[in-house]
């Protein structure tokens, strides 16, 4: 059993989606040790966060809503910042990296709430939020093994 499959086993209800998402990332599939796995998942989260932010900034142009503006700016800035911070702490402080990996998920969570309060239904944004929250969870589980 590979490292990423073992990680997905810990993801509970998200196991199936975890396998689906990570199988598409050859580097993650081939990770040789846990530190490498952590690094690759955090980089994946950072990449996905930047993609989501770009989509949200485009959405701001077609849907003039303060909730989308909030998602595209402060909330996803926070998520991207957390993934970056976690990456930078991997070698120095496992506990801080673990904390940052977890709070990266606050951005999509709060974004979902803001959109819901504004009664905005956008399946693409919801899917992006869900996947990034999942990656944050996986990064948290992986970094939990760090010394």
């Amino acid at each position: 059993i590979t490292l990423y499959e073992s990680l997905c086993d810990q993801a509970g209800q998200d196991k199936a989606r975890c396998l689906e998402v990570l199988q598409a990332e050859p580097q993650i599939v081939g990770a040789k040790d846990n530190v490498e796995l952590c690094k690759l998942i955090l980089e994946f989260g950072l990449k996905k966060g930047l993609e989501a932010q770009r989509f949200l900034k485009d959405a701001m142009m077609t849907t003039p809503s303060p909730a989308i503006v909030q998602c595209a700016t402060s909330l996803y800035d926070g998520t991207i910042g957390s993934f970056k911070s976690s990456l930078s702490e991997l070698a120095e402080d496992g506990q801080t990296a673990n904390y940052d990996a977890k709070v990266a998920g606050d951005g999509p969570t709060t974004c979902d709430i803001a959109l819901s309060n504004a009664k905005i239904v956008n399946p693409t944004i919801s899917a992006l939020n869900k996947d990034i929250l999942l990656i944050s969870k996986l990064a948290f589980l992986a970094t939990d093994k760090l010394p």
Partner: protein
Amino acid sequence: MGAPKQKWTAEEEQALKAGVVKHGVGKWRTILKDPEFSGVLYLRSNVDLKDKWRNLSVMANGWSSREKSRLSVRRVHQVPRQDENSMAITPVVPSDEEIVDVKPLQVSRDIVHIPGPKRSNLSLDKLIMEAITSLKENGGSNKTAIAAFIEDQYWALPGLKSMLSAKLKFLTASGKLIKVNRKYRIAPIAAYSDRRRNSSMLYLKGRQKASMKIDRDETNILTRSQIDLELEKIRSMTPQEAAAFAARAVAEAEAAIAEAEEAAKEAEAAEADAEAAQAFADATTKSAKGRKSPKRIHT
């Protein structure tokens, strides 16, 4: 951490803020080792400090106490349904209590519909700071670029140009912005501090470190840090100094708001002081960048 939760006391919170002023954001281990703070923060880990600082920043960043409470309630309802959310959610009760402790800044994020003058001013402050931060132009941004950014990002606001002119003048007069050759950039230190040469050097160092370490929403965190800096400075004053300081602050605010001409004069003085401060900050930055040793000694 496996340790049980302990509510942050006012003393601990104050020590954390003072530690950030002294050592900078992100220097959690350094703060914990400093004898000035270790006596108060001995039960806290570096992650505890980071978490508390983040909570303070989040509330300074735009969630009013009412919005935060509403969010907290909704989060409770969502917990049983989505396992995913449980990973991200902070316990609600401590958050509610922390709201009372922290006295968050009332900053509105309702950009499109700006109800009243006060909220409008607050929002415009944030928009201007965000524009300058995002544009990242060398030497700052001019009024046209700032207006274009705001319109691109947040849709045209009625009377934006005239509001922007007045607001830029006010921010320059109050020391939050520096104006050079019709370009505006975010001031490295509050204007009031510049009036005390010796202390401004010390605060400038602390502020510079804070600026260098922040890698998230810099503008919002700086806003909070700025206020903390002012509060810390006031706390270290004698009663007479504090009274004089407060009187000066009030006088300056009144002048800036009531009389454009007097505000312009204040702006000129603030600009000259800020130029000197900026030169010092630049020197500090170069000095800091030159250090390659992992062991940094903060004098």
